[in-house]
């Protein structure tokens, strides 16, 4: 099958593969998976050609790459029954090919020479056969520095010269992963052109026919194709600006199509016929809203297609909203501690004996005035929470609780200073236990090592502004007034 938008690329690659350069770099920053598929189908259909396709994500050690390449080039598949042995030359091989680069290259040479001993007719074929090694996600090879350079000069090092060609496929530019000091020869670079809207639409339509052919079911029937085309063009026109990846669009469409075709068949006057044009337009209009919502929840994979169809959405906050009151106070205090500079605590929470309840905040509004030529400070909530020692958290927690909680027990013996009771409450072991519990729940983050003894533990807030606002509303805390920088 010819993939839409890849005609020119496929032509070029086919021409190149007749006598390929030793090192080819294909860069596709948009749809590398489709490019990989196209390359595979070209290589598989190539005459007199043997190829190995390895993914550098899956093959994350040199040994895995060696095995993958050699088995694929020798067209050998390891079988469970004989111990999943890798390919090896028939006559008394004395070493494994995957131990080092040297043995790997010997393996490559052996694959070429092996056929001569096994069969006469086949021998000729493999002697002239072009060997191609396609490495997908080649940017991951940077994790294996000893392997990267030899792979790029493999044809020269293995002395297979023109009969071996290495193709890297990556979404990263070659300049970004090139080994230093010019150790690798520069590749012949082929850029894959990004897909257009029409290409994406054609891709999706071809996809439909493929599904119909491979696993036909009620919703996927070739007779629905005209309606499917209309549906696809509607979805593409809405969602194409947000992603150009046909696979993502296909996922969104697959979630909705059975519903759409179901509704369409219900609307149809005749049993077997598709609805007429006005009905189709009305249906499409009624589905427009759900096309957007489907994309917004399915593209980031906030939920999966089956759940989305059920109308379920996994609520991430479900567990945290049922927290006890003290937990929420601690989280709020941590949010404040992470957002406000430590110097401002006294102004925000400091209460003398006489001025209880009065809030001191600097007048004049806004943050620091920005002088000419000075770089404006980025608000703390944009650069992430800052860390704070445990003592500060407890102090802020005390002030919060003191101001917002009413106690039934008014007077205690020996406690004359206002707030002394609260201070005692918040420094109880239970509170400290709660803090470590919240740390385990990752609602607080501990930035110092657990086994560190000197100094107080340093923590960091891990809840978002929205969550903090919600807790504040529940507890009746005026959070916005307590933050130094206004949002």
């Amino acid at each position, binding site marked *: 099958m010819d993939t839409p938008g890849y005609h020119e690329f496929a032509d*070029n690659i086919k*021409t*190149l593969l*007749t*006598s390929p*350069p030793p090192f080819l770099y294909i860069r596709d*920053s*948009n749809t590398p998976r489709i490019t990989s598929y196209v390359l595979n189908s070209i290589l598989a259909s190539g005459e007199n050609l043997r190829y190995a396709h390895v993914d550098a994500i899956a093959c994350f050690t040199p040994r895995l790459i060696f095995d993958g390449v050699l088995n694929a080039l020798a067209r050998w598949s390891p079988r469970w029954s004989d111990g999943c042995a890798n390919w090896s030359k028939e006559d008394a091989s*004395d*070493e*494994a090919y995957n*131990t*080092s*680069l*040297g*043995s790997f290259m*010997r393996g490559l040479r052996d694959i070429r020479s092996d056929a001569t001993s096994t069969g006469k007719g086949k021998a000729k074929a493999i002697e002239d056969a072009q060997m191609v090694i396609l490495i997908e996600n080649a*940017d991951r090879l940077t994790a294996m520095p*000893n392997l990267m*350079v*030899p792979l790029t*000069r493999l044809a*020269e*090092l293995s*002395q297979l010269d*023109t009969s071996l060609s290495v193709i890297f496929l990556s979404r*990263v*530019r070659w300049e*970004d992963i090139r080994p230093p000091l*010019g*150790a690798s*020869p*520069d590749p*012949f*670079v082929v*850029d894959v052109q*990004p897909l257009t809207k029409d290409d994406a639409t054609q891709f999706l339509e071809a996809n439909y026919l493929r599904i119909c052919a491979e696993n036909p079911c009620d919703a996927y029937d070739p007779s629905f194709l005209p309606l499917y085309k209309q549906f696809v063009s509607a979805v593409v026109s809405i969602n*194409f*600006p*947000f*992603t*150009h990846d046909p696979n993502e669009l296909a996922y969104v469409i697959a979630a909705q199509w059975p519903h759409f075709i179901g509704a369409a068949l219900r609307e149809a006057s005749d049993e077997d016929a598709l609805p007429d044009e006005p009905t189709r337009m009305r249906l499409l209009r009624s589905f427009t809203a759900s096309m957007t919502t489907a*994309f*917004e929840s399915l*593209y*980031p994979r*906030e939920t999966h297609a089956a759940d989305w169809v059920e109308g379920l959405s996994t609520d991430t906050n479900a567990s945290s909203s049922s927290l006890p009151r003290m937990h929420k106070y601690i989280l709020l205090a941590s949010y404040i501690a992470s957002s406000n500079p430590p110097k401002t605590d006294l102004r925000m929470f400091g209460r003398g004996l006489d001025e209880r309840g009065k809030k001191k905040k600097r007048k004049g509004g806004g943050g620091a005035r920005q002088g000419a030529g000075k*770089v*404006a400070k*980025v608000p703390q*909530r*944009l*650069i*992430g*929470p800052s860390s704070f020692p445990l003592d500060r958290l407890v102090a802020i927690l005390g002030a919060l609780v003191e101001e917002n909680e009413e106690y039934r027990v008014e007077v205690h013996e020996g406690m004359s200073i206002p707030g002394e009771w609260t201070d005692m409450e918040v420094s109880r072991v239970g509170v400290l236990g709660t803090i470590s519990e919240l740390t385990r729940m990752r609602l607080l*983050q*501990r*930035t110092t090592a657990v086994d560190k003894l000197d100094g107080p533990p340093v923590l*960091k807030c*891990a809840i978002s502004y929205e969550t903090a606002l919600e807790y504040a509303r529940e507890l009746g805390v005026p959070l916005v007034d307590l933050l130094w920088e206004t949002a």
Partner: protein
Amino acid sequence: MAVKRKASTLEAPNLKRRTRSSGAVVEPLDSLPATPTKVIRTYGSGRTRTVLAQTQRENEADILEGDEGSREIPHENSIDSESGSEDELMLSPSRPSRNARVTRTGTPSSRRVMESVEIITPSKRAPRIYPSRSSRNLSETPDSSSRLPSVQQSERSQTPEKSPHLTSPKMNMWAINPAASNARYVRPCLNMQKRAILRALQSLPDTRADEGDEDEEQPRNETVMQQLDDLLKATVTRGEGNSCLLLGPRGSGKSRIVERCIANVPQKPIIIRLSGWTEYNDRLAMREIAHQLFQQTGTAYNIDENDPDAAGEDSPFLDTIETEQNRLLLPPPSHLPALISTLPTLSRPTIVILDSFDLFALHPRQALLYCLLDTVQNCRAGSGRSALAVIGITSRLDTTNLLEKRVKSRFSGRTLRTAHPRVLNAWTGLVQEVLSTPLSGNEDNEEHVETWQSSWKANIETFIADDAVASLLREVFAVSKDIRLLRHLLMGLVLQLTEASPYPSASHLSAVISAQRLRLQHGELHALPYPSLCLLIACMHSRTAGHDTFTFEMLYERFIRQVRASTAAPVQVNGGSIGMVRCPRPVMMGAFEEFIASRIFVCVMPATAVVSKEFIKYRCTVEFDDLRKAVARTGHAHLKRWMNKPQ
């Protein structure tokens, strides 16, 4: 506005066309109008009179039959110049009409005669002067060629004439060639030619810098080859121990020289090839030496079979039986001197080739180099032992300085320097040689292949002689003399050729230079989806504000602010706001992660578990100018406005 047709023999009612502005019906008097020079137009007193001189047309008719392509070009050009005007009635159809063409080919040429047309129309404009063909310069021609494929669908026979350098006189000569117009064979011939050239590119011939290189009697590489040849022969025949270093820039032919010299050696020596990239420590090098010795001599060189730490320790998947076998081949590192010292005891002389010699100098204590060079030094001619030669290949200039004193004193210090060709002629000669690779024998439709080859050859000559091509090559040559770069350029050049423009030209070459050598930082920014472009613009504004590094939250904040500002105006069109489209945070986050994956955003701080992903700081690698051009190219008005908005 009215049009009267006074006399025309063309009877084709289906060819009626309507001009856009006036709606007046104009009959296309001839689908194939005369060249602009043959049209006489009189403008004045509100009447336009067009007279086509019958005699001229009749004279031309014969020539034109076999020569459609050369006629086609002025046709296209005249349309170009006319299409801008709305008031003027177009005597020629605005597009080459398929129907018209069919009619024309069906009717004899005498029927196309038209005496005159009188158009009664108020002329508002000054008479237009049609640009003559010769005044069009090269830069405009790609435009006309880009329009051509649509023409070709109707008639394929014009293909060979569609080369972009239409102005070249040589081209016209070939355009007239009637056989070349047989375009059905262009495609297979072109494909065959492409394959032939690609095959030729796999094994480039030596550069011959014979012309214009008078100051040097012999190219440097040939001298080096001679010296190395002598050296190896001395080792093989006279039993000398030799060491030398082959030094030269990348792609200057070091390995090629070594391979040729080895092939020239009279007696077949044992050859051990090591590379600093694959054998990155002495242990691997030892194993490799042992392997290669085993393969070439058939005997395993094992020193001590009882050594417990013999081998297999870094291959945990091997079971014990295999380890027993392996030990025959793999000596432990401590036996390096013993292994190397066995080399002179072999029956044949040995040549050790050390590729990336400088990397071996970085091994601890340079043990391998020391052992090898020490053995070389101890080789005595006529002692009955085999000789050893060590050839180092490197492109690093200070390699000898890297050697330790004890190693350096054992090294002969002989350094052979290879070099790139020094004059451009070497390149142009190579380009010509490769591009004019003959097609291999093909029995069927041989005459077409011949025709193709002759026209291809002529076009290659034009290509080589082109000043623009020469200056492009000179530019590249001035920057890099690496022959591999030239190979890539030629490869790209050949791949660019299509049926529509089957011959290479200067514009092809400059395109391939920008694709292979002067690669744009980020070429396809304009094709990015909307959220990605928004992120990049937010990045630029963040950079302008002095924050080179940014978090996702910072960019998203800028985006939200911009959306809010653009939707603030209470204007609605068809019930929808005309402001920027909102984009939910997870979708933006998806676009952000795509950028991280394609390394357009580079992380500037170590990723730790304690920082959540929206607060990790990144740097953007896209430059302002690239993005500005890309945004302009998308034609997205909101993005353009945001891009240019001062903040």
